[in-house]
């Protein structure tokens, strides 16, 4: 039989990652003073399970490291070692090393042979002082291989005397099965001896009075024969004697022999095991099937989501057509169509729910980041979390991790002050960061609140002026100043630290959040703290859009990008020398992009004052899109264009409207690039003189 267990590798990797994240949580608990033995046991089990699986998949590096690590944890839970800073450091580092190894196994990228050896040696040294270490432990014995002769096979004849003690059955062992195993090793002749059988009145049904003599012809060695009796060696007297041997012409496979039935007297022993009524047992199996979870390939779910998207579109078309049917002639059709609409909506919600995952998976990484970073910066910070079970589309979760990590780092680095400074401000030494998630009106809000110094507005303004982001004499509200930290190329750190520096600022965070249809905002009170809010759509598959008309074409602009819509007076419009038109909105000059120019549409309104201007903000810039008419707000199902064509600049996707027409969804970032970027410098000079 060839059983391949490689298919469980993915299960193993996933499980290990879960165990590692559990372990991290537990380590943080210990560091916070909860050194309950049960917690240590749980940590031990994490490492133990990872080790167990590693062996099965030949992941020797993991086996070796976790083996030593396990001894260390053992000393810890037995109280031989005590938790101190050095021990914590080893525990965290050890965990990280195991994680690296698991990830390497997942990606099939081998790590250096000596990966993690510094920590491993440190652990081994400590273990040796405690008396037991893998280094000193005896090697596991290897099973001996049967000697294979060249052309002939040497067959040994063994005479086996197997005399079970009376309590053999209490170990759950059954002699007849042992003979079965012997018969698979070669020819057997089994004889049952009944001379120890007492009178019926002295016979105890649960005890064994029989003994056996077995002759076995086999190519196996004595140790292999004895191994068959391994489990009963304490409850029997066993003799294995080599009484002879002969040579056989070599055959490729050992021939299994049918089990030669022991003589009929052994029936007494056979009657003992308790059997249950078969029908009763079957009924119980049916009841006991666990209603667990199943793992499904994400592709399959995406296909389902896509199909439901198509269904929603078809339903929309049907619904529109049905409106033309007179209600009193065909009331059943109309009722059916309405019911269909409702079921479709419910189906869509149900399918979306499959993709939903609690934000816990990313929140869980934050305590460690806070711990490591606050330690590095000499700050004392407590992280509180709430709403971890709030669910968001998996695709959004995947893309939320980096921005969120960055924002937390930002709060630790720039938000919370050093303990000394906090004391001066009459605040407790320990700073507090609160990370929360909540579902707010069809969107998810993730909130990062700290009780630090708040945005240093004076400093932000100075920096923005030096970097040319705002004019020297601009008159900004405090909120506008706070929002400058999201402006591209802005970083308030006095020096670039290796914490939140590296040129990646909050503008990148903002861009990433916006790429998944989210928005970012900040509220800050000087001296009291800041509150960052990320607002996210529940899913990436549906979008709230504004349908607009340009010529005979319809486009969708994501509602999240729209600030306001207006019909400008001709006096508010000016034409710049660079060829760009701008609109004066309450004193602010905002550039315009003519949709008909970008997509070469004929038969449209060319004068912005006769059309409509949709003011949008794409995270970096504000600009106006000139269109002919607004059609209305609607939820649209996003279809990717990239499966069917090369990417088109200015278009992020497509959708099918209720009337069956395809409508393109505008990509505001690209539109700005096509329409305006060239003259940005000119715009700055205009702003400066305003």
């Amino acid at each position: 039989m060839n059983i391949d267990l490689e298919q469980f590798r993915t299960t193993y990797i996933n499980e290990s990652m879960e165990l590692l994240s559990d372990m991290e949580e537990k380590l943080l608990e210990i560091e916070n003073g909860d050194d309950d033995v049960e917690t240590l046991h749980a940590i031990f089990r994490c490492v133990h399970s990872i080790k167990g699986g590693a062996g099965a998949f030949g992941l020797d590096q993991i086996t070796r490291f976790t083996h030593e690590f396990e001894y260390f944890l053992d000393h810890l839970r037995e109280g031989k070692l005590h938790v101190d800073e050095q021990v914590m450091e080893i525990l965290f580092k050890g965990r990280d090393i195991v994680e690296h190894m698991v990830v390497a196994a997942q990606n099939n990228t081998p790590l250096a042979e000596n990966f993690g050896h510094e920590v491993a040696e440190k652990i081994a040294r400590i273990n040796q002082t405690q008396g037991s270490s893998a280094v000193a432990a005896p090697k596991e014995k290897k099973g001996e291989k049967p000697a294979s002769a060249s052309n002939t096979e040497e067959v040994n004849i063994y005479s086996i005397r197997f005399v079970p003690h009376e309590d053999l059955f209490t170990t759950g062992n059954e002699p007849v099965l042992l003979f079965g195993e012997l018969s698979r090793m070669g020819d057997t002749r089994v004889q049952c001896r009944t001379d120890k059988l007492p009178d019926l009145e002295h016979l105890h049904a649960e005890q064994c009075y029989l003994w056996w003599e077995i002759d076995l012809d086999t190519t196996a060695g004595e140790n292999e024969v004895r191994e068959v009796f391994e489990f009963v060696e304490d409850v029997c007297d066993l003799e294995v004697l080599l009484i002879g041997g002969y040579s056989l012409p070599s055959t490729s496979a050992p021939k299994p022999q049918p089990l030669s039935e022991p003589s009929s007297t052994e029936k007494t022993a056979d009657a003992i095991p308790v059997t249950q009524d078969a029908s009763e047992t079957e009924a119980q199996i049916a009841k006991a099937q666990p209603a667990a979870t199943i793992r499904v390939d994400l592709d399959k779910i995406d296909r389902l989501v896509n199909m439901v998207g198509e269904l929603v579109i078809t339903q929309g078309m049907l619904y529109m057509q049905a409106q033309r049917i007179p209600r009193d002639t065909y009331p059943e059709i109309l009722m059916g169509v309405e019911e269909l609409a409702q079921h479709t909506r419910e189906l869509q919600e149900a399918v979306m729910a499959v993709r939903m995952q609690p934000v816990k998976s990313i929140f869980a990484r934050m305590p460690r980041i806070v711990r490591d970073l606050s330690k590095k910066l000499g700050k004392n910070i407590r992280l509180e979390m709430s709403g971890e079970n709030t669910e968001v589309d998996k695709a959004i979760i995947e893309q939320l991790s980096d921005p969120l990590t960055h924002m937390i780092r930002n709060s630790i680095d720039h938000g919370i002050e050093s303990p000394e400074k906090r004391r001066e401000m009459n605040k407790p030494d320990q700073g507090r960061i609160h990370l929360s998630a909540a579902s707010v009106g069809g969107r998810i809000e993730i909130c990062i609140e700290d009780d630090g110094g708040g945005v240093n507005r004076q400093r932000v303004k100075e920096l923005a002026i030096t970097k040319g982001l705002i004019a020297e004499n601009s008159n900004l509200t405090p909120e506008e100043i706070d929002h400058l930290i999201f402006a591209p190329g802005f970083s308030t750190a006095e020096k670039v630290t290796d914490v939140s520096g590296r040129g990646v600022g909050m503008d990148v965070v903002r861009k990433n959040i916006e790429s998944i249809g989210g928005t970012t905002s900040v509220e800050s009170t000087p001296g009291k703290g800041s509150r960052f809010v990320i607002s996210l759509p529940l899913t990436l598959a549906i979008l709230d859009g504004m349908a607009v008309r340009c010529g005979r074409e319809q486009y969708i602009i994501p509602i999240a990008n729209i600030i306001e819509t207006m019909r400008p007076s001709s006096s508010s419009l000016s034409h710049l020398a660079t060829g760009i038109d701008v609109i004066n909105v309450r004193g602010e000059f905002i550039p315009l992009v003519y949709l008909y120019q970008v997509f070469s549409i004929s038969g449209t309104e060319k004068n912005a004052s006769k059309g409509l201007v949709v003011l949008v903000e794409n995270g970096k810039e504000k600009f106006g899109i000139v269109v002919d008419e607004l059609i209305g707000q609607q939820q649209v199902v996003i279809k990717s264009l990239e499966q069917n064509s090369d990417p088109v600049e200015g278009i992020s996707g497509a959708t099918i409207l209720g009337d069956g027409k395809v409508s393109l969804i505008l990509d505001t970032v690209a539109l700005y690039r096509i329409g305006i970027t060239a003259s940005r410098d000119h715009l700055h000079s205009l702003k400066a003189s305003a």
Partner: protein
Amino acid sequence: MGKKIITVDDSKTMREMVAFTLKSAGYDLVEAEDGQAALTVLQKEKVDLVITDLNMPNMDGLTLIRNLRGLPEYKFTPILMLTTEGDAGKKEEGKSAGASGWIVKPFNPEKLVQVVQRLCA
């Protein structure tokens, strides 16, 4: 109907590997994630062989074995314990608790089938 075996292990990977291996060999499998869960299942349905890990949360393997041996219907049921090392101490403890046999993790699938056949036809 094939013989029924329960695999008790807190590691899902291990449970699935044991189950897969033994299902391939024609056995029926039930799974439980710790001793407590196993005991609940086993009090409701009888199995022909118990395969249990030792180190588990809630109820460890040794406690499970002792509990099972205390139940009349499991007095003679073969119990195979999975140990991680060839740890003699654990093996002795297991034996005195009433284990029928043991197999060292990581197991080789063929070896597991062989040992299972030794304990349960």
